[in-house]
């Protein structure tokens, strides 16, 4: 099962490598990982999308919690939450038909064309994992994908629930 873990940790040299090292050392899976400082720049927030059954995820959460740098860990997928990912994708847009089709699909998915080249469109799309996958599939049917990059998932709990130091 896919899980989204949010981790609040000290923004110090080496703290990210401890997280990454832990996952490889104990053969836990990482589907995506994002990290950046929070509004309090002494803290970083990591979002990890991982796969595992309940037993594995319980171990992951405990092991992450055990790292001295880590203040809080939560499994966002346990409760209502919002998750988003950004996709930047460059596709071939050689002729009028492809260009308008790419634009149309982008509009349907509520993304935007953010740059154009002589023969390419660059599109920005925001959404959860499922939506981005669906969008990529839709594009594939119309044109050729030149390059794509995904930010990895970030997430936050719905309502008043908050992950704070």
């Amino acid at each position: 099962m896919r899980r989204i873990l949010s981790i609040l940790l000290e923004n110090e040299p080496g703290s990210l490598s401890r997280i990454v090292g832990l996952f490889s050392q104990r053969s836990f899976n990482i589907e995506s990982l994002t990290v950046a400082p929070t509004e309090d720049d002494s803290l970083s927030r990591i979002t990890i999308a991982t796969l595992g059954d309940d037993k594995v995820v319980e171990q992951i959460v405990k092991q992450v919690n055990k790292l001295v740098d880590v203040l809080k860990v939560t499994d966002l997928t346990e409760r209502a939450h919002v998750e988003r990912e950004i996709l930047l994708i460059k596709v071939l847009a050689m002729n009028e038909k492809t260009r308008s089709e790419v634009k149309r699909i982008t509009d349907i998915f509520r993304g935007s064309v953010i740059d154009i080249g002589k023969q390419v469109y660059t599109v920005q799309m925001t959404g959860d994992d499922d939506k981005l996958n669906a969008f990529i599939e839709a594009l594939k049917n119309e044109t050729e994908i030149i390059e794509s990059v995904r930010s990895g998932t970030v997430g936050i709990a719905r309502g008043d629930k908050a992950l704070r130091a």
Partner: protein
Amino acid sequence: MTTELFNGAEMVVKALAALKVKYIFGYPGGSVLDIYDAIFQQDEVEHILVRHEQAATHMADGYTRATGEVGVVLATSGPGATNCVTGIATAYMDSIPMVVLAGQVATTLIGDDAFQETDIVGCSRPIVKHSFSCRSLEEIPNVIAKAFYLANSGRPGPVVVELPKDMLIPQNKAPFHIETNVQIRSYSPTVKGHPKQIKKAVNTIVNAQRLVIYSGGGIISANASELLTQLVETLDAPITNTLMGLGGISGLHKNFIGMLGMHGSLEANKAMANADVILALGARFDDRVTNNVEKFCPNATIVHVDVDPTSISKTINAHIPVVGLADVVIQQLLDELTAIGFKADQERLAKWWQQVEGWRSVNSVSYEKNDNGLIKPQQAVEALYKVTNGEAYICSDVGQHQMFAAQYYPFAKPRQWINSGGLGTMGFGLPAAMGAQVAFPDAHAVCVTGDGSIQMNIQELSTCLQYGLPVKIVSLNNRSLGMVRQWQDMIYGGRHSSSYMESLPDFVKLAESYGHVGIQINHADELEDKLAEAFALKDRLVFIDILVDEKEHVYPMQIRHGAVDEMWIKKGEKA
């Protein structure tokens, strides 16, 4: 008034003194010469010079296991630091508090592949509790204080502190300030068991028909032996210890049913398999205990007390988890038992004990002596027990001799038994015994070893001479790597691939060349007398080379992939 200023090297030593460190185990080199210069100019902290950095870590480790005080290692950058890796891993696996101060090249050179540069923080990352790299002179004392606090709280473990050369040089000075009352906002280990879980645990324990207590190294590190004994006596339950937990209750206690696991006693493993409630205290259901986890005690309710939440339900699901320090939680359990007015159900106990005594009567931990005087390794350990009155610090290497020592030397007290249980590090025994000897100069510190293990840190005989450490080395010499050979006999069709030690040195002469006494014992009739003679040499290191039967296997032994109680009792005989 002017504030006194210190350079980084002086701060390191001052910090150690402030933390009441008596000994540093180490080896000098380029990046730490400033620290060595600072050590030279004070007399609060004594430095012990080893012959290889790995031995420094094991020596610090042995010192810690014998005393409970945090061991300190000092090594230079590069090879000095990487030589510590095995010792750090050994301490990590057995949850031993240790602080390793590792030199590093100057910050201006880090990343340039400078001379003797390795990323020791990176190298050691998977085998430390935490690590630091000092990047300012002023922070050195507090970083060291934090390292000690982390190493010795919660689940203990090794902490590495990297000290770049430019933090240590005499030219840069700052005022010294150390905060020994350490607070770390991201770290607050649980000490006390949750009251609800304590109630649940006690409720389960008192309703058990067949309760067994299974305790491990957590009892030793929490100094919880007395409380454990009290709990055992209150419940009058059978208790088994892990390899790491031996001495947690006296090996002579009537409720003690021996070690469990791979080479545990039949009664211990049978009791586990037949228990309806298992109370695990500071033990982690290691694979050398459980055997096949799929077949492990499927009908038992498991109450698992551990200070480390990751140990709970990692391999075996715990029905009632209790997170907390062993001593604190046992006290809570005792208080709750008193609160509910617990009285042991004698009838229930008698029935259970009758079953346990049945298994005990098989006398699974036993051996047959040879008629021709060829010494059995078990016999040597029994003689050692007799000669040392059961009071020695037994520091073991890794292999058959380790298991024989665990089986045939009942430990009356905690911290008497010092071995590399988790990592299984050959070469651990001698430096560990040296560490115990440093801590207790008047005690018998014994290294029980074999002809394989002893050669992995034999160079430390030189350190022993320098510091006058009268360690007794009891080598069960079977001219082969016994445990490897045993597995080859049992599993690999008797093909002894690389397990035969050709060209062994003359250990007696070797000991003599290092300035020590060496003796060889090769007949059972002279075993006790010669051992007694060796131990009578109070001020000398004696290398006792005991030629033992090379065909002997360690029994009992769990059958691979079987349940916890599926065992070979002796060659070709199943329980």
